[in-house]
């Protein structure tokens, strides 16, 4: 189940990165940092949140910031 979620979140992050013209060499894993590793800025993070909300019906920024993929997964 959690693997499935990771895959969905990875797909969403990949779309967001493409829209921001960002590239990342490594694999997206739970420890990946959204800002520091992937370079997502606030617009990209907001897009990610909207896309996740469309899929899971949860705003991951509801109770404050999330920094890593793991922290995103924990909200779902």
């Amino acid at each position, binding site marked *: 189940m959690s693997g499935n979620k990771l895959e969905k979140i990875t797909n969403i992050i990949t779309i*967001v990165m493409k*829209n921001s013209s960002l590239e990342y060499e490594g694999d997206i894993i739970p420890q990946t940092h959204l800002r520091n590793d992937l370079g997502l800025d*606030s*617009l*990209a*993070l*907001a*897009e990610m*949140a*909207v*896309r996740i*909300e469309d899929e899971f019906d949860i*705003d991951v*920024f*509801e109770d404050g910031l999330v920094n890593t993929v793991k922290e995103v997964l924990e909200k779902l």
Partner: protein
Amino acid sequence: MIFIITEKKAETYSSLLYKVNEGMCDCYFTSFVSDLVSDNDIDLSNYVINKKKNKIANLLELKSKIINSKSRIRFKTSGTTGNAKKITHDMSFLLNKTKKFTKSCVWLYTYNKLHMGGVQVLLQALINNDTVIDGYKKDRDYIFNVMKEYEVTNISATPTFYKLLLPIKEQFLKVKKITVGGERTDDKTIEIINEMFPNAKVNNIYATTEHGAVLFSRNNVFKVNDKIMIKGGVLLVKTGENIHYNTGDLVKMINDTEFVFIGRNAEIINIGGRNVNPSQIEDVITNHPKISQAVVYTKSNKLLGNILACKVVSTEVTENEIRSYLKEKIKEGYKIPRIINLVDSVLVSKNNKVVR
């Protein structure tokens, strides 16, 4: 003689036309009258046009009753940005806005009949004994068919209505007058009209349900006049000595005396503290030659408050192409919609206006 064609199939048009010439009228007219004359000082039972007694004398008498009616007519504003308001006008106010023409016209009717634009067209046609063809909420093929078959000369509609006629199938040379209003008219709409109706004079009307028509233009540039005032980029309509009504419509002066409409105050979207006018982004998107319509709207989130999303009508471009096009045209990243949906059509309200 006024008549309105409603749900008739194409093959029955000629028989209906014959009946109309014989002095018959479609019952839709009666229902229009009973809705219009809401305070009802006309005893409709004497004038109900049924299948047995459709005499032109009745209709002319009915027309005179409508014109002389002391009724007050209630309208609901479309409530494009907020709650719909109720506005009341008497018949003399509405008839004041109509004009007598020497030539007879064939109108394509596109409005909801309970709204100001619709009633204005019906009264205009009634005053001149013109023909009205009902094109309200009809599909594109139906519209094209009736325009040809009845040689429509006048169309009054919202910009959205004209955009829904895309792609352009043919030109309609008989159309002499195009009225456009009810929404902000963008360059795309004027382009479509000029191409589709090359012989038509364009009349772009800015009206409010409260005041009726206030401004007129042959394109989408309006001239400042003494009925209005512009303050802080917002259009105000003068309603009395030093009394102004805030329309909430945003305008931009292009020189000392002329201006264009750029959007509505209530539609401004705040993205992390920065304001974006969705209409301006829509203009950029629809300037793409392969895109016929676009709607920019907001997706809310806790991080920035809002981000932009858009729906784009086109079968010829991909999401990636739109994104690169927008990156080229718009410098500020936050003004570029983050979510782009390609759709077959956009949602249109019962007043033929685009719904965000």
